[in-house]
């Protein structure tokens, strides 16, 4: 996986993908044809913030402010973007 996520990049959910909170499971999921992904903890927090307008940098700033005690959060967030892009859950706006 190449590290090509830039702070200025803007991402949104890929077409035919849906992101929602699942009450019965107490976690976020991404749904798409023939499959689904359960997102736990931080991963859901990242996707939740994507509205097709905010940049990766905005998400990092926002999450750092929301979770001030989380160590090394930026690397985790970038890692989540890399994974989500490589899996085709996100598209670049």
């Amino acid at each position, binding site marked *: 996986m190449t590290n090509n996520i830039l702070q200025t990049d803007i991402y949104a959910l890929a*077409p*035919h993908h*849906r992101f*929602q909170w*699942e009450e*019965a*499971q107490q976690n976020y*999921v991404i*749904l*798409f*044809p*023939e*499959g*689904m*992904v*359960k*997102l*736990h*903890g*931080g*991963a859901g927090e990242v996707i939740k913030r994507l509205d097709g307008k905010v940049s990766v940098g905005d998400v990092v700033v926002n999450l750092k402010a929301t979770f001030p005690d*989380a160590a090394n*959060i930026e*690397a*985790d*967030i970038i*890692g*989540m973007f890399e*994974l989500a892009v490589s*899996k*085709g859950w996100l598209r670049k706006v």
Partner: protein
Amino acid sequence: MTQASLGESVVQKIVHVQQNNGVSASATHTQPLWLLAEVTYRCPLHCAFCYNPTDYDKHTQNELTTEQWIQALRDARKLGAIQLGISGGEPLLRDDIEDIVIEAKKLGYYSNLITSGVGLTEKRIQAFKEGGLDHIQLSMHDITEEINNFITNTKTFELKKKVAAMIKNHGYPMVLNVVIHRYNIGHMREILEMAEALGADYIELANTQYYGWSLVNRSQLMPTKEQVDEAEAITNEFRANPNNKMKIFFVVPDYFSDRPKKCMNGWGEVFMIVTANGDVLPCHSARSLPNMQFPNVRDSGLEYAWKESPAFNKYRGDSWMKEPCRSCSEKENDLGGCRCQAFLLSGDADVADPVCSKSPFRHLIDQAIEDSKNPVMVAKPIVFRNDKNSKKIIAGEFNDRVESFHSLP
């Protein structure tokens, strides 16, 4: 429809995100994430490989009502179901699919209509789109009119091409399912090219698994190991080409493997099926198992079915296992394989899936592979899935085709 398209391959596609960013996967599933609504067993196609029960004719007169389906959708959603497959038979033979779609959307399901395309009109697809149906999985059979029409015992080739275009035009992702068998496995490259040309986003190449009608026609449908290997090689070559954006799922045929599939990702772990007549099943062919009483939505709710019914609990975990599964170091990988396959072939539902090379019944699989090369066996006519043949099977005709199985496939 195929066992594979609705079953284990779907589970394979459930990815558990495991990362270091506070993300961890849950170890077990206790919720029916996937609800499959087999709304009817009626079907205009007569596919030789259909996984539906061969005695389906008994269940065509007692289908659940719209209200009963809507209640089932609500109850399953409460239990945690998210993915909804609307299947059959051919679901479009019911005129209330529009109502079911609207309710599914309201409840927050990601809904999928699994169809042959027969009966899909502009009017209906527009209603589905407006109602919130998320995607349509279309079955395709071959690139040639001849094989398509032969294997489905219909004249539907041109229609399928039209329907594919209709699905695309309405902004739906193009999800194709192609069941692979002896008659089309030689066309793998052309099938993939056809899918690309249709603009497919996903294609499932589902090697036939032998349940229902396909078990009756096993000797006639099974390709050779060499053909399967070649098909897989072509698939991998296609995947490796960066110009090909289409996602390909290749469902491996278990007979040519030496370990069984993790059937349904575990009995009563992820999947819940409600059949046309309201039976609640952990897998498509569970009714072929002996001494099992499956719950029915007319008598008890889905919560009881999933959590408490003896049938759903019967093969959860591994305490039911016999040797060689019980002490097998690989038992978590496949959970002993498929209970239905074990029973249908060996007569004991608790033994290892005969596909496993450690199974004392592996010779039954090897014999089936040999039979599929035996000109006498192969020369027997295909028993197409239709009402007449279903009635005949119920009446005990075709005994020579089912007598080696321990219950009616």
